[in-house]
């Protein structure tokens, strides 16, 4: 057995042990034991991924009782990269769960679902054929549904979110099943190698491509299939949201890459255009909704849509450029796609885990009721801040490295002679620029309103720092964000191997995109930034020494006193100008109620202002669709109303019908 085979078998065995521990261990040791075993599942996945990326090979066959070929696990370099990402996220989330899980989330079925979920996420990219892929995919879907529903007994919105999630995730499964089945029926085989021989220009391939794109886009949370994301994330426990957002959602991106790079390579141009359009719309729409959201986890959920949008945009650009005479820039775009996957996994883990620590400490999800947590939870504040820097793609974080690569590929991919490319590239640059700007605003809001100023509620005022295992996980995630941001070379080397891009060479400290002549040395950027900051600080301190400090005895409150914490800047007021600018796209509902005093209409007693944001896609697409389905269901219910007499009547009628048909 090779190292890869040992790794795959080890993951399966450890996941089995984890499930067993969750179900059978005594109550006191249950959470800790399951957490440790889940972390080991993640370690096994990450190590296997690294071995695969360094050229290791292996093939694990699992025979089934089905009359089909045995299921095979045979990870390629692309799968290895996603295995590494999912495993690393799994380790951090599992360590966090040791300190975090309590109450309903510590129930045995929920605990048992976690290691199974982690293992399933690592097996999806390892799958070497259709059957094992679908089996792992379904295990991932079912286990995550159980985890989302952890707090179903105490919170009604969890039950609704669970329904949405189960519906959407199975819609995704069915579409993927159909798409793969179409290809498999056409090619007469189930392994990826057999499916890959299909002619990408045929009608079957086109139909399968569309089905697969919609299926994987649903999993990846792309607009307009994103509706489950902002519901499932607030409902799930935070370590689960972190694993779902950082690893499971990117499995949708893996699926898309699997289709365009392995199964149907060299497809027609519209393959790439579809991906670019989906990605661009998702990126802008996701970050717009995130910038207006005032629930911390909804904000992070929408930001996930933005990030997967950027990944898919990069993948689509990569396809287009490879076909249209700019293979160097195309390789860079695919590399950017994988770097975005890794960076998103790192910072989104830090952000969701930080959000979980804030939530459990303050009991608040509404940003407008937080504040002042920086003093009370310093570790959480710093690590969340690092995650926010990553999400805003600022230097010294891995998010910057990824977006730099994406922009390099877009700029160097310009082909004025090619009409399609000449249109797509500037639009893509504009989308990335707008997204980056709005992401900066969004995460200034998320970190600033949560951790700075004075507490806006009782819960925020009495918050305590998270327990030790949670702190360890948070620091781990933040260290990865900064570490990969400073030394991205190894990650880039692995990503090159995964997309088979021969053009780029990297050493530990730098990314070199040789064929488009671009080099990034993050350490140099960090040094320059550090020097600039030191210079400004030195100038400021010199200036301060020359002009003596002038003390103020009292904060200015226009002659009154600003004692109420409600008079501070809130998330809603911070986002207000933006919501006004994008009024047409966001369509907020505002209600202003003014009550007057009895004595005179000119004296105002109270002003009530309420603003709510509804997802436009949901209101325009899903609500009518669901209404239609409900009406059809109501008709169906009239036929099947539970009356035994009516059912006997049906069977009698059916019998008569059969007799009539037979005697004809």
């Amino acid at each position: 057995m090779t190292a890869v085979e040992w790794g795959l078998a080890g993951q399966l065995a450890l996941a089995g042990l984890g499930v067993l521990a969750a179900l059978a261990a005594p109550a006191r040791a249950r959470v800790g034991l399951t957490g440790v075993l889940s972390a080991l599942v993640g370690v096994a996945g990450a190590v296997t991924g690294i071995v695969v990326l360094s050229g290791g090979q292996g093939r694990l066959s699992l025979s089934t009782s089905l009359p089909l070929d045995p299921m095979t696990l045979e990870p390629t370099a692309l799968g290895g990269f996603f295995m590494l990402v999912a495993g690393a996220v799994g380790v951090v989330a599992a360590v966090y769960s040791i300190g975090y899980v309590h109450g309903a989330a510590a129930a045995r079925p929920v605990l048992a679902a976690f290691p199974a979920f982690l293992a399933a996420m690592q097996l999806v990219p390892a799958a070497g054929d259709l059957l094992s892929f679908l089996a792992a995919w379904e295990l991932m879907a079912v286990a995550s549904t159980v985890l989302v529903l952890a707090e179903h007994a105490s919170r009604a919105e969890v039950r609704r979110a669970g329904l949405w999630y189960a519906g959407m995730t199975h819609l995704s499964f069915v579409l993927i099943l159909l798409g793969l089945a179409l290809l498999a029926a056409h090619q007469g085989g189930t392994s990826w190698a057999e499916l890959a021989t299909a002619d990408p220009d045929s009608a079957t391939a086109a139909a399968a491509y569309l089905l697969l794109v919609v299926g994987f886009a649903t999993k990846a949370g792309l607009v307009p299939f994103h509706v489950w994301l902002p519901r499932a994330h607030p409902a799930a426990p935070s370590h689960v949201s972190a694993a779902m957002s950082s690893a499971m959602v990117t499995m949708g991106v893996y699926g898309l890459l699997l289709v365009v790079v392995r199964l149907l390579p060299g497809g027609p141009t519209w393959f790439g255009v579809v991906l670019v359009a989906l990605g661009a719309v998702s990126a802008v729409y996701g970050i717009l909704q995130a910038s207006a959201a005032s629930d911390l986890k909804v904000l992070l959920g929408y930001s996930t849509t933005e990030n997967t949008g950027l990944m898919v945009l990069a993948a689509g650009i990569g396809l287009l450029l490879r076909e249209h005479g700019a293979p160097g820039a195309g390789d860079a775009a695919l590399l950017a796609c994988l770097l975005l996957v890794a960076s998103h996994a790192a910072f989104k883990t830090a952000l969701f885990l930080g959000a979980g620590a804030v939530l459990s400490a303050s009991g608040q999800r509404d940003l407008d009721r937080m504040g002042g947590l920086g003093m009370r939870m310093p570790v959480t504040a710093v690590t969340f801040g690092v995650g926010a820097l990553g999400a805003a793609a600022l230097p010294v974080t891995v998010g910057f490295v990824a977006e730099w690569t994406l922009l390099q590929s877009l700029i160097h991919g310009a082909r004025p002679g090619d009409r399609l490319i000449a249109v797509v590239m500037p639009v893509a640059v504009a989308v990335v620029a707008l997204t980056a700007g709005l992401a900066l605003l969004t995460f200034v809001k998320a970190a600033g309103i949560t951790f700075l100023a004075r507490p806006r509620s009782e819960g925020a005022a009495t918050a305590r720092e998270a327990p030790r295992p949670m702190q360890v996980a948070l620091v781990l995630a933040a260290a990865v964000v900064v570490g990969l941001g400073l030394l991205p070379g190894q990650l880039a080397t692995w990503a090159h191997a995964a997309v088979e891009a021969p053009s780029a060479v990297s050493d530990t400290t730098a990314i070199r995109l040789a064929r488009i002549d671009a080099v990034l040395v993050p350490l140099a950027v960090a040094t320059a930034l550090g020097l600039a900051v030191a210079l400004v600080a030195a100038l400021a301190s010199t200036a301060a020494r020359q002009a003596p400090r002038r003390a103020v005895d009292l904060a200015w409150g226009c002659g009154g006193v600003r004692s109420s914490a409600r008079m501070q800047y809130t998330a809603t007021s911070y986002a207000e100008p933006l919501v006004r600018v994008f009024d047409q796209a966001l369509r907020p509902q505002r209600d202003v109620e003014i009550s007057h005093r009895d004595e005179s209409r000119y004296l105002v007693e109270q002003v009530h202002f309420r603003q709510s944001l509804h997802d436009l896609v949901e209101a325009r697409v899903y609500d009518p669709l669901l209404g239609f389905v409900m009406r059809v269901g109501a008709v169906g219910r009239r036929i099947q109303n539970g009356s035994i007499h009516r059912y006997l009547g049906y069977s009698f009628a059916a019998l008569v019908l059969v007799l009539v048909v037979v005697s004809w």
Partner: protein
Amino acid sequence: MSLAKLIRLARRSGRIAEPAPERPEPLPDVPKPLRGSVQVRHVDAGSCNGCEIEIGAAFGPVYDAERYGARLVASPRHADVVMATGVVTRNMEEPLKRTVAATPRPRLVIAVGDCAKDCGVFRGAPGVVGSVGEVVEVDVEVPGCPPRPEQIVEALRRVTGR
């Protein structure tokens, strides 16, 4: 008004500011950060608006106190000098104290007008707490009911030393 019109108007009306009078004797102990130029926040602690009209005139084009480095600002956070007018009424006592406290130190307080100096004709009236000097520490007093703009400008020049 277009720029050309504005220039024509300025040329037609010529210089309307009064020629600068003799420089008054500067105050002996003006803190160093305040020398040369000060930002002024005005507080009406209960004035009849007579002093306000004269302060408006002092900062208008004829007397032009800005020539001597004094400038009115909107917030005490930007100010070096608090300029208080009128008797201090019951409702304005606390806001006046807070305005002075919100002005960065070192700061000066100028009491403008007889009411601010010693309550003037309103001494002992209901609702009056006292003169400005009885509520906060006053550094410069400008007498008069109302004081002439020249007197207000002179007091400011004694602070700026110009």
